[in-house]
């Protein structure tokens, strides 16, 4: 018994000494499930390649907790992830460590992405994955209705008409164009009409073409079936990307979706396709916007050199490729857009091609983004309720922008 105890103590002591030789850093990530498992594999690979740094991964999907941790003198993590929309606000608060000192070559990151990560000439974050939105459709439903995938908004309107079904009692049984994320869908429609909701770093909710895009959805999807019937139908949508997912269930025929859908739709055994977002004019075909999953180091880290090393590793081409492939996310590097690694993801090319398209818009960093997004969400909801026209609802947002942080 005492011998066994002695062996265990010696083993424990050896492990302790091994750990003490290395700098331990904590990587807190918002992902969980399959994404979290992919990250843990990347962390394990990094640790195996290292004799100076050891990374401890922690899945923590609570953004408020993440923020609270950065408010203290010594934080709970040394590196973490978030979205580009928070970069301006957080850098302004002084909680993001400038990354310029790490000497990272940023020439391979798309301009639309870098535009979101550099604030006042200082780099605060790096992309681990990017996302854009295209028109995903259910092939079976389109074939049954004799509809070819639309390329213009006029064709889109026509397709919606043919693909929307209402029963004898006025209940919607199928929507031609649905929204699995109201804000993302409405913003995409705004770009399809040549609009922009955030031009030159200023909120532009009343941009005439953006208003046109939002009104398009109401006029072509909601109004024909009535707002009450529309919202009753939508109330029956199950959780996103689950077995009860509205697109998987065939409740919606077309939807503006990000590239992550490629993996889900295929694994769900769906017969599906994707085309660039239809434009109001041929020049606007494929108009979309890019959102970025970013990696950052908080100012209150006690191990910035080690965190910087891991940051460089995780955004390096082979690691980024591996990570984005597992998640079916777009990479954040131009050189990876043509990588053969993504060939096994059906229809992925449509999203990959959009990475370098001039019609793919990046959002300039803005301090007010969280508040603006909340107000836009309220405005979109008001339109879907039939309570206000797009113009009136977005004018109400414009009236509030004066109180935003600038």
């Amino acid at each position, binding site marked *: 018994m005492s011998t066994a105890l002695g062996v265990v103590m010696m083993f424990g002591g050896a492990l302790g000494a091994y750990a003490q030789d290395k700098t331990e850093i904590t990587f807190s990530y918002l992902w969980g499930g399959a994404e979290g498992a992919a990250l843990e594999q990347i962390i394990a690979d990094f640790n195996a390649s290292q004799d100076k740094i050891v990374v401890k991964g922690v899945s923590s999907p609570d953004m408020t907790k993440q923020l609270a941790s950065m408010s203290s003198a010594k934080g709970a993590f040394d590196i973490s992830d978030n979205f580009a929309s928070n970069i301006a606000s957080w850098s302004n608060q002084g909680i993001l460590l400038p990354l310029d000192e790490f000497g990272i070559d940023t020439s391979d990151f798309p301009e639309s992405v870098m535009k979101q990560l550099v604030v006042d000439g200082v780099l605060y974050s790096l992309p681990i994955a990017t996302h854009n939105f295209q028109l995903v459709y259910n092939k079976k439903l389109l074939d049954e209705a004799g509809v070819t995938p639309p390329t213009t908004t006029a064709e889109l309107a026509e397709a919606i008409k043919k693909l929307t079904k209402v029963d004898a009692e006025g209940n919607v049984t199928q929507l031609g164009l649905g929204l699995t994320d109201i804000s993302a869908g409405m913003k995409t429609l705004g770009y399809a009409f040549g609009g922009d909701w955030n031009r030159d770093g200023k909120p532009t909710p009343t941009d005439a073409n953006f208003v046109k895009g939002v009104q398009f959805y109401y006029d072509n999807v909601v109004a024909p079936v009535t707002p009450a019937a529309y919202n009753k139908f939508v109330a029956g949508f199950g959780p996103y990307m689950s077995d009860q997912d509205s697109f998987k269930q065939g409740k919606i025929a077309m939807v503006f979706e990000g590239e992550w859908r490629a993996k889900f739709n295929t694994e769900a055994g769906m017969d599906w396709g994707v085309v660039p977002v239809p434009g109001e004019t041929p020049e606007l075909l494929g108009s979309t916007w890019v959102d970025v999953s970013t990696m950052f180091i908080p100012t209150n880290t006690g191990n910035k050199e080690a965190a910087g090393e891991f940051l460089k590793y995780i955004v390096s081409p082979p690691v980024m490729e591996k990570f984005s492939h597992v998640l079916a996310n777009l990479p954040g590097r131009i050189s990876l857009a043509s990588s053969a690694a993504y060939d096994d993801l059906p229809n992925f090319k449509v999203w990959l091609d959009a990475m370098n398209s001039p019609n793919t818009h990046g959002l300039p960093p803005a301090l007010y983004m969280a508040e603006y997004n909340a107000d836009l969400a309220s405005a979109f909801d008001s339109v879907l*309720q039939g309570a206000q026209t797009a113009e009136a609802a977005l004018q109400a947002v414009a009236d*509030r922008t004066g109180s935003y942080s600038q």
Partner: protein
Amino acid sequence: MSEARSRNSEPTGRALLKGLAFASPFIIGFLVLYAWPILASGYYSLTDFSLFKAPKWVGLANYERMISDAKFWKSLYNTLFFTFVGVPVDIAISIAGAHILNQKLKGQPLWRALVYLPSIVPAVAAGFLWRWLLNAQYGFVNEILRWFRIPQPNWLLDASWGGISVIVLMLWTVGGTMLIYLAALKNVPQELYEAAELDGAGPLRRFWHITWPMISPVTLFQVIVLMIAFLQVFTQPFVLSKDPGLGTQTATGPGDSMLSYSIYLFQNGFTFLKMGYASAMAWVLLFVTLAITLLILWSAKKWVFYDNR
């Protein structure tokens, strides 16, 4: 006897110190965890503060901003709606339920336990349960309404029903209040009812002239406690308004009908990083709560009966 005398004759200052030492865990906890944050929030309410940067003095600007903030008024309106509709309904159901529980029924302890059961279910779990119950397409509530050919509202996605849904979820825990009323009913002297019956008073007159005045002190307490709970409501609308099908995370519900005061305060503090404005909102809520409480206490002179008068 002599030991007791020596204890009583202990110098006052020393006794005070001993008392304070014994009470110090509470006193220190109160000062550090309650008094200091309350005073600090008062100061922050007069500053531009984001948690991360030093507060910048702005005087009454945060309070002035509320006047022109449409969402502030919307959240205040919603919260007062929840309170002024929810509290009377909660009281009415509780009193009615307590009367039923007060009957000599078989298995009475079981019924009492059952009505209290929802109160021990965590609010988040109850919220997710009610999201399904209130689902306009597949929900059990609308299924029952369909049996009786009553129109079925779109509880969670219709702006005119969003607030009602929050109240329904709040009423889910009415059992706690019901049991307190049950205890109050048991304290009403039976001879009062017997005398009233001899005088020919019916059930309604007996309730109005005996039960209601005799349980009025409990009602006063319940009204104040429930009013404070409704004014601070956060979890119920927050859970109800999260819609996984739509991917929205606005926590404000259709037409902002579920935007409670506490949710808007939380958004300002932790999402928009406007902690100064959130602190000012907290003080306004305190004064609104205080004003309504004082109004209730003032009105209590007219409707609360204390039998020791």
